[in-house]
């Protein structure tokens, strides 16, 4: 990467692309709120629709590439940034000048990466290669896999923690990405800021509530 600005432009582009992916993914997950019998059929039908659609396959590959690119680039840039200060301050108060989550995007991202691996094992791997039954509509019963996964308290807790990490990652990330692209909202600065916060908090909270809801309500 030649220029530091080019590096952060790629970081922002992959980050915002992943945000788009989050919206699509969230739309699918929200179907888990539907009442049980037809919710199950609809969720499994939707999963089948996605996994059999070639366009979605391409989008899926782009998402993997996006996550990989985002993570590898973040490592390269963070290493370069660290190298710019070889002697640390003996006494420093960074908390007076910037929020903690803005300074720890790499750690929050690493939590997300670990979460993604576990998440892929539980659902993606099981759906494609696990011993999964078939629902009354004739589709592979991913819904049952979801219920079984969120039958365990620690697994629900893991999701809530990971989504909190994502909330903070996006709380800084969304606004930062727009700034990186040179977006200067001026008159709408406050509105733009609130939209960024609303996206980060809203998307993460909805993702986090689903496992809790499944654990408390849908399992029975």
């Amino acid at each position, binding site marked *: 990467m*030649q*220029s*530091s*600005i*080019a*590096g*952060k*432009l790629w970081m922002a582009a992959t980050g915002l692309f992943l945000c788009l992916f989050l919206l699509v993914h969230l739309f699918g997950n929200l179907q888990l709120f539907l009442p049980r019998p037809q919710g199950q059929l609809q969720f499994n039908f939707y999963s089948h629709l996605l996994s059999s659609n070639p366009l979605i396959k391409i989008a899926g590959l782009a998402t993997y590439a996006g996550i990989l690119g985002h993570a590898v680039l973040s490592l390269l*840039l963070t290493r*370069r*940034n*660290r*190298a*710019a*200060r*070889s*002697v*640390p*301050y*003996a*006494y*420093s*108060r*960074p908390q*007076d*000048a*910037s*929020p903690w989550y*803005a*300074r720890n*995007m790499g750690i929050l991202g690493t939590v997300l990466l670990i979460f993604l691996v576990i998440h892929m094992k539980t659902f993606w791997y099981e759906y494609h290669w696990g011993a999964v039954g078939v629902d009354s509509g004739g589709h592979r019963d991913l819904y049952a896999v979801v219920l079984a996964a969120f039958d365990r308290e620690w697994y629900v807790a893991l999701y809530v923690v990971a989504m909190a990490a994502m909330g903070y990652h996006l709380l*800084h990330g969304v*606004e*930062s990405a727009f*700034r*990186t*692209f*040179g*977006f*200067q909202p001026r008159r709408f600065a406050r509105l733009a800021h609130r939209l960024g916060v609303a996206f980060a908090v809203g998307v993460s909270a909805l993702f986090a509530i689903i496992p809790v809801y499944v654990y408390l309500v849908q399992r029975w």
Partner: protein
Amino acid sequence: MDLKFKIWRQDGPEAAGRMEDYELTGISPDMSLLETLDVLNEQLIANGETAIAFDHDCREGICGTCGMFIDGRPHGPLTGITTCQLHMRSFEDGATIHVEPWRVDAFPVIRDLVVDRSAFDRVIQAGGFVSVNAGTAPEANSIPVRRADAERAFDAAACIGCGACAAVCKNSSAMLFVAAKVSHLSLLPQGRVEAVERVRGTVAQMDAEGFGGCTNTGACEAECPKHVSMEHIARMNWEFVKATLFSRE
């Protein structure tokens, strides 16, 4: 006031440095921090020790040479001021005050608290200027400038090149300084002509000097003694995108 100090001492660019303890008694709260260091240096000299080297010139917040890291923050615990504008009344009686030079590899320590900020000069030489002689302030109506643009350019022009932005940044990024220059000149008609070359040149030089990259944490804006806004970083990014994608060669 009675005060304790922990101050970075380093004999030369290659020497290993260390934090050293000092104590001062009977300091007036109305003295500035630099005056307090002057008093400390007189004591050191009287005792046959070497004085603490620190940079300063105007002592009124306009030259930008006096920057140092005081109690964990650039230019000390207040905002919107330089080190030379910091007075002892901002500290508690009996406090221990930490004083260190900027920790940015692109600003190597020359001695004690003095760093070499010529990296900023080389960034300016790489495009932070207008090539033709723009002369003295022109007659008010000869070159019309939108008022909003004039205000923004003026906000950027307030930068005094102190280096606090890079010093506080977790990435040691000099983006706020470079953005202030790029934004200031590209907002005005005399500078607009060279906007493409300016953003390319200064950003390339900023990277070549070894500053880190910006991640928009906002620490620079919070600690800048002139409150230069991060909006200028966004504007510089946009100038960079335009120069990369849309400018004719």
